[in-house]
């Protein structure tokens, strides 16, 4: 199969799954006669999945630029949700404006021009040092460390980590030329299906809560079943990757575990802030960050594993 055919086959497969999911949701809703909020939420989630898959498909059609723009937009929406909930003050105004209007676009431009040496340290080093300087010049010392740390964390999570998804396109893998988009499809598909499968396994067999204080809906059964079945899915997708089936399974397992723990970390922050969701952007899912949390923690690790062992 050519790259083009592989991409089409992949999206046809996802489309087929969504058709089945929508049919199941429709039948369940008919049976419940609109009396079950759980089923309404399920259908809202499925509908949102259609939109998300369509967006990714459109980005793929536009190639490298399309994908960079898509994830830059996702970063923007995520950062906006994150900083809205932080306890910043007037003194942070310039630093935050800089984060939105300078750091975020610059990070994606650096990825666009494939400047690995800079985009991999731009936020952890330069933004890390310059933002507190800008904020300090405003001479507002109240909760200074907390405020500046919150803005830096927002940039790391919402911009730096998310940008490692399109950064996969810059990897130079022998024998895998021009197919890097499929690496993005692999990462997103495996990690997101892990979220969905954890939800499904948890609903069907969930008995023992795994982290009752952080995330009451997560269960041991959902975690084991979801992570393992999504890793099997990853192995089954080896044909779109430069990995062998066994490697694909191992890498899928790694990113699924990172995704799971990423979800826990983001839940802990939400608990601390006293909110259930980061936002209300995606019906049934919450905000952009609620959907992205697992990808955020998986993407940089996936990027570096592939870069270290598979690139020339």
């Amino acid at each position, binding site marked *: 199969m050519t790259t083009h055919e592989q991409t089409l086959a992949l999206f046809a497969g996802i489309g087929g799954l969504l058709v089945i999911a929508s049919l199941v949701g429709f039948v369940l809703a008919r049976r419940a006669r609109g009396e079950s909020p759980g089923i309404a939420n399920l259908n809202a989630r499925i509908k949102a999945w259609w939109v998300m898959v369509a967006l990714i498909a459109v980005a793929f059609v536009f190639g490298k630029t399309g994908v960079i723009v898509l994830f830059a937009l996702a970063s*923007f929406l995520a950062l*906006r*949700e994150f*900083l*809205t*909930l932080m*306890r*910043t003050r*007037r003194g942070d*105004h310039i630093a*935050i*404006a800089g984060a*939105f*209007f300078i750091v975020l676009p610059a990070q994606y431009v650096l990825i666009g021009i494939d400047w690995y040496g800079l985009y991999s340290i731009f936020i952890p080093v330069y933004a890390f040092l310059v933002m507190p300087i800008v904020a300090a010049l405003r001479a507002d010392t109240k909760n200074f460390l907390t405020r500046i740390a919150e803005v830096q964390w927002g940039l790391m999570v919402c911009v730096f980590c998310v940008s490692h998804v399109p950064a996969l396109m810059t990897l130079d893998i022998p024998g895998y030329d021009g197919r890097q988009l499929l690496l993005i499809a692999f990462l997103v598909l495996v990690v997101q299906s892990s979220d969905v499968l954890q939800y499904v396994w948890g609903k069907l067999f969930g008995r023992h809560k795994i982290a009752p204080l952080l*995330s*009451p*809906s997560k269960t041991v059964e959902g975690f084991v079943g979801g992570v393992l079945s999504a890793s099997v899915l990853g192995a089954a997708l080896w044909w779109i990757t430069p990995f062998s089936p066994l490697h694909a399974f191992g890498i899928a397992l790694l990113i699924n575990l990172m995704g799971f723990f990423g979800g826990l970390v983001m839940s802990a922050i939400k608990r601390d*802030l*006293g*909110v*259930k969701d980061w*936002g*209300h*952007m995606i019906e049934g899912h919450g905000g952009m960050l609620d959907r992205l949390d697992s990808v955020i923690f998986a993407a940089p690790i996936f990027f570096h594993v592939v870069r270290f062992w598979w690139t020339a």
Partner: protein
Amino acid sequence: MIERLAASVITVFARLVTGVRTNWLGCQPEPVQRIYFANHSSHGDFVLIWTSLPPGLRAMTRPVAGADYWQQSASRRFIGERVFRAVAIPRGGDARQAQELMCAALDGGASLIVFPEGTRNTGDEILLPFRSGLYWLAKARPDIECVPVWIANISRVLPKGEILPIPLLCTLTFGAPLKVAQDEDKTAFIARARGALLALASPQGNGESEP
């Protein structure tokens, strides 16, 4: 028809710029006649309230505003009169006339959006003292519930003295309805209403948790 179109353009635009989020904390968006009272720090305040109401409620909810603001241009007049169907209060008129206009709107079945601070708050104070209009209105129509609405973040988006707005999300929190108690006087009710609104102001104090 053209009013509906204008209404959707305005609400879509408000959503894009502020990404407005709505917390129905103390009540639900039910088709009950209400007086929504909110803090006032921006001209966009009632657009945000109006946007965050479901379309059905939006159609029955009218903002109360100074007449002069709505008569400054033809487009404003169109939006004020036809889209928001604002209850226009003549500036400098007496309090009784204002009250009669609002009561007439309530008797017509509408819900109202009012800003009891009486003016836009552009200072550092979190909430200005209330004027007494809310008390007289609630007293005149004691069966209609008064719902506090806290509008958060508009002032963080563009603090006074800054030039560049930052795209933070604005949040509206709807609190529990209140009514004037039988022997409650003006000072007590105004203090209670102001307290109820301020209680919604804690940035993340919605205490929501997963079921």
